């Protein structure tokens, strides 16, 4: 497994309102270098809260998160922004691309914020766009490309700065089945070829079957964890079985 990229200790998150609601109730988790982990669980189980806590978007109530040995919540706003765009890559369900920018500009956005030299930017852009097969899209505007293409662009943006951890929140939620396959194959190749660690939240067992390891969250707690062998079909069956135990999982399909 090697060194751990992400170390989560006793993570708790409470939403304080008229009725205080505990979304996460003590999660311990480790993500090793070059690991691809999917997070599953019924809706309301806390999987998105978990990802948001790791994403440094949602501050946990109790517990510690270390990414590459650093605690992002001890940073101020500016340092945190820098940390995000150097250590983390994000892929969202709704792509989160900036409409006013072209495809190329969207991909380069994290780099421009750090004012990288132009030749270096160009070099990385070429590398990433070749890798993801989006070279012919570069000069297009966001509204001109399809959903699957949008997600590819978003992935390109997420990996162009070579993050140590790629975080994905339902990356296939808005895609048709062909695009789902394309995007998930990209995740696999990012994992195997770029050696990037990936943490992905999904409710789709097929999508989850691309990961090496799946953790299941229920009622804010770690419920179960399964590892993939060599056969993805078998792994898929295993996921379905676990979901059946968990209850509620299939209904979301």
């Amino acid at each position, binding site marked *: 497994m090697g060194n751990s990229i992400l170390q989560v200790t006793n993570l708790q998150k409470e939403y304080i309102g008229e009725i205080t609601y505990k979304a996460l109730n003590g999660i311990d988790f480790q993500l090793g270098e070059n690991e691809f982990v999917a997070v599953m669980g019924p809706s309301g189980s806390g999987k998105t809260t978990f990802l948001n806590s790791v994403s440094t978007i949602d501050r946990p109530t109790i517990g510690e998160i270390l990414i590459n040995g650093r605690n992002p919540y001890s940073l101020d*706003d500016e340092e945190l922004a820098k940390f995000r765009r150097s250590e983390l890559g994000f892929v969202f369900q709704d792509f989160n691309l900036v409409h006013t920018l072209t495809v190329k500009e969207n991909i380069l956005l994290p780099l421009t914020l750090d004012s990288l030299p132009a030749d270096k930017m160009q070099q990385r852009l070429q590398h990433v766009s070749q890798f993801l097969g989006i070279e012919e899209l570069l000069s297009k505007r966001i509204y001109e490309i399809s959903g699957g293409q949008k997600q590819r662009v978003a992935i390109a943006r997420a990996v162009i700065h070579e993050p140590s951890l790629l975080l994905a929140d339902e990356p296939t939620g808005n895609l048709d089945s062909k695009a789902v396959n394309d995007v998930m194959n990209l995740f696999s190749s990012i994992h195997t070829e770029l050696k990037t660690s990936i943490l992905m939240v999904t409710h789709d067992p097929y999508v989850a079957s691309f990961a090496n390891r799946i953790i299941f969250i229920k009622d804010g707690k770690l419920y179960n964890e399964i590892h993939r062998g060599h056969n993805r079909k078998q792994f898929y069956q295993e996921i379905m079985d676990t979901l059946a135990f968990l209850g509620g999982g299939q209904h979301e399909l």
Partner: protein
Amino acid sequence: MSFNHIVIQNILRDKWTYVSYFLSSMFSIIIFFLFTVIVFHPSLAGLDPDSTLGLALMLASLLVYLFSFIYIAYSIMAFLKKKTKTLGIFMITGASMKQIRTLVFRENILIGVLAIITAIVLGLVISPLFLMGAKVVLNAEAFGMYFPIKAIMITIGLFLVLFVAISKVMTKFINKEASIQLLKSDVVIEKSIKPHYLLLFFSIIITLGLGYFLKIEHDIVGSLGLLFYAAFFLSVLCTIYLIISQGMRFTLKAFERSSAYMKQTNMLLASNLNAKMKSHANILFLITILLSGVFLCTSILFSSYYNVEKDSEANYPYSFQYIATPKADPSMVKADIKKIEEQLSTVDSQKYFIEFKSNEDHRLGYMSVSDYNLLHNEKISLGANEFIAVAGNHKTIPITNVSNDKYLKQFKLVYVNEKNLLTTGFQQTYFIVPDEVYNSIKYPVYKTYLFELDNWTAHTELAKKIIEDFPHIYEERYVTSKIELYDAEMFTKSVMFFIGSMLSLIFLSAAMSILYFYLQTTLLQEKEKYVGIRKLGLSKKELFTVVSKELAILIFVPFAIATTMLFATLFAMRTMVSTSFLQVSMMSSLCFFVLFFVSYIFIRKSYFKRLLSN
């Protein structure tokens, strides 16, 4: 469920869109209403509609109405844009274009009527305060509160017409394709501005040409009259629009190619401007025009206000001037002068009793050098055949050619005094001649009694009384007073000043509220965008930089263009206006800059806060 039910529900369910539209309409109606309250005030009832003041008031109300028209039309446009998606849904579910138009029309009328009623009620509440302000500024005791039935009727009538007209016209602009397009995707993609550099070039040439004509070729301007000014105005507007839009396009394209584009937040800023190039250009244009209106208004009015004392003195040099013609009865003159002296006994004053002879056919006056010396407190001595020419009219150079003059044919001009000697226009020119020559002149004698008061602007009551007591008697006595002129001018100028500051205030707040609504309509989109970018790693500080720069462009570019235009105009007119005008313009620009800077800080803070809020 009736159609009207849908109309009402459509409004109630989407309150906030309508509220901003309602408020902006109400705002312009209140302004108009308050203005008409002043115009139809009973104490102005005696005002001659053809006088400067009457014309100014008429023109100003016209301007306010015109402005309301544009402003409301703009609000409706912005509002329709926001509603396009809803309208698209109606169309998809099978409403015909006619029904959609009826729906929009009825909505607008409903809001319009509500806005009119609210504006009048609010206006009635504010008007006592407003009239009190007017009373202070105009220095008129008579500006009391009254029930402005006429103003109410006119406001209701005019704005009902306006709303019906605008709604009817605007519903024609509902675009079926655009509405349905919006259903497919939430994002409206603006077409970017096309390059029109040739057009820009020609429009600049035409404007400069017309401007040059205005300054040089008075004959052509005179013969075309209003048409010329309209053409000039139009070409100026076109040029400004083209300069703004093409300039923006050019700058952005150049910036995109520069190496700075990919540095830090520059790309975000430029792409923001790029994506909204057209609407940004429109907003910049609107604000620039409004600001230019404000700047010109204030500069002209402030400076005219500033010069009243000097102008009155230049026209009527003395506090009181009593001229008795040869036909006047000497005993009446004696009694008059005695009475005036009695009335002036309580104040410090100097008296000068002089005379001049007049060539009545040519309205040329002759005065002895000793009388001239007495008036000017000087000790000039003239040679036997020398004379001085002194102006008889304000701003008219005195006649110096005396070759046809009966007495002065052989005389030599030694000095020209361009400051008029007595009340402007009484004689064309006064020739100052040696005493012996004066005595030999055989023209009728005009006895002139002059009184000069210390601190003269303070004696308006006295002046009014004396002018009332001694009216002109044709061809016998002429009594004039600079104090009375000053008082009358002062009133006109204060009313103008009041109107001007009202207009500036209106334009200024309009500029700011247009900006506010503009930001408001795009806020949600922007917020969504920035939430996304923030997740990727954009710090608050970086976001603040982008927002600051974008707002600064929206606020200070129009300011810079308007100021440049103001000073260009002043420069072109530098021979016609005094330096005090320039000073006043500088001061007012500076004040506006401070005002703008404060609003910039304020708008930026609240906009930034709202961008970050959930």
